[in-house]
């Protein structure tokens, strides 16, 4: 496993000398700023309206965690859906277009070292994005009193979602030599994973599958949305952790198989 660091380091450096990292970071910062401001402003409007109508029960139920941080994280999750494939699209695809795949595959390293090195680079980038979100949430601690643990659970959710998206993106990049295809493939896979719970609901609504049927249960479990919403609501459930662990492991194994298949063609 001694080559993992070398591969991850090269990948990160190369992300930061290309415009990709900066485009992604800028988009994330701008969109983050916009949605953060929107969440705070809508919270402010709601509070002043509740005061105006003297809806004290409603006012009492309002808090920064549930009404600013959670909705904000949930929007940023959609942003991640589009940005993480941008980071991962080149991880393997560019090795094929550069011809450097031949260097990697004829060097004394294992496929696992290669896959984990690449994944580690993407994971580091996702961590950076999560920390940026932490900064936004941190502002609220200066001016208000949100609950720390609940906020951290939400950040953990964002981080895990980002990490699982990176694994999906890595896989998409490993099966094509075209970065654009890798990007859209990752996006489609992520959208499907996200929408599985919607399919489950639709199935229930149209009576095709019952909402309590095993099929719908499996679809719901496979979908990232329920697990993520649970985490942003402050509930750190081992089932959610197991879900993300399972997703990451599955796509890393798929990536390994896909990279290895070059040898068997």
């Amino acid at each position, binding site marked *: 496993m001694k*080559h993992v660091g*070398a*591969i991850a380091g*090269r990948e990160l*450096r*190369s992300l930061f*000398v*290309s415009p990709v990292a900066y485009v992604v970071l800028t988009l994330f910062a701008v969109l983050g700023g916009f949605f953060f401001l929107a969440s705070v402003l809508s919270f402010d409007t709601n509070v002043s309206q509740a005061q105006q109508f003297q809806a004290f029960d409603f006012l009492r139920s309002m808090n920064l965690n549930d009404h600013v941080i959670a909705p904000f994280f949930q929007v940023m999750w959609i942003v991640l859906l589009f940005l993480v494939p941008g980071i991962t699209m080149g991880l393997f695809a560019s090795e094929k277009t*550069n*011809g*450097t*795949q*031949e*260097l*990697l*595959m*004829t*060097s*004394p*390293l*294992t496929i696992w070292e290669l896959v984990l090195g690449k994944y580690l680079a993407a994971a580091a980038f996702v961590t950076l994005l999560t920390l940026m979100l932490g900064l936004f949430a941190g502002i609220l601690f200066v001016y208000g009193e949100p609950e720390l643990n609940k906020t951290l659970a939400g950040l953990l959710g964002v981080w895990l979602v980002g990490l699982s998206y990176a694994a999906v993106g890595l896989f998409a990049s490993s099966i094509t030599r075209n970065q654009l295809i890798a990007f859209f493939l990752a996006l489609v896979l992520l959208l499907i994973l996200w929408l599985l719970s919607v399919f489950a609901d639709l199935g229930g609504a149209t009576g095709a599958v019952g909402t309590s049927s095993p099929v719908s249960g499996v679809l719901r479990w496979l979908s990232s949305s329920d697990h993520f919403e649970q985490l942003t609501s402050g509930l750190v459930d081992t089932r959610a952790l197991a879900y993300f662990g399972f997703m990451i492991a599955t796509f890393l194994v798929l990536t390994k198989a896909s990279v290895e298949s070059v*040898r*068997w063609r």
Partner: protein
Amino acid sequence: MIEADGVSKRYGDLVAVDDVSFKAEAGEVVGFLGPNGAGKTTTMRILTGFLPATDGTARIDGHDIFEDPLAARRAVGYLPETPPLYPEMDVAGYLKYVAKLKDVPRARRGEAVDRALERCGLADVHRRVIGSLSKGFRQRVGLAQAIVHEPSVLILDEPTVGLDPIQIREIRQLIADLASPPDGAPRHTVVLSTHILPEVEAICRRVIMIHAGKKVLDEPIEELTGDGRRLEDVFTRLTLGVDDVPEAGAASPEVSA
């Protein structure tokens, strides 16, 4: 040292490499010759561990490429047809990365990179970004990455393709020096593929000709060209199956089928 033992590669019904065996000792420069699509690149890819053989095996410095692939790969330097370069990296940074991948110990890495830079005439451009280099320099960087870990075996796939005559001469000199270094450093076994016949005559001591996946010739170059025969004629005879090309016009009776 390379020992290939009945190496074959089949893709379904297509036989790309058919039972190729040969041996190459340290200090030898062996030329892989053959028309395009003869199986030269596939054979080289098998020797470097990029592709598995369907049948047969090979030993690099005594390490079997299937049983001990990592040790075998450590002993090989490989320059593919397109040099495997990262355009966004600088030359020295790239070579350092390759040295890491090839298990050059940390303490010797700087020295190994400097030596490769110097041998390939890259000392002046070591801070330049690879993407901004000319084709000739990129080819040299490709060669430098193949030798940075001092492998005992060098496999070069068309090392001079697309270079100008002066660059070709320099690269050929470099290859000759790698096989038998003037300063008494350890000698490399070099296998290079080409379809430029004068190149073979200029630097190779032995010729292995491959045609339709089969080895059709394996002889020292003096014996091939010793009695006034031209390499080109040998090549044409073996790849086209035509006898006595020198006497053009007088078609040999065996050919009419």
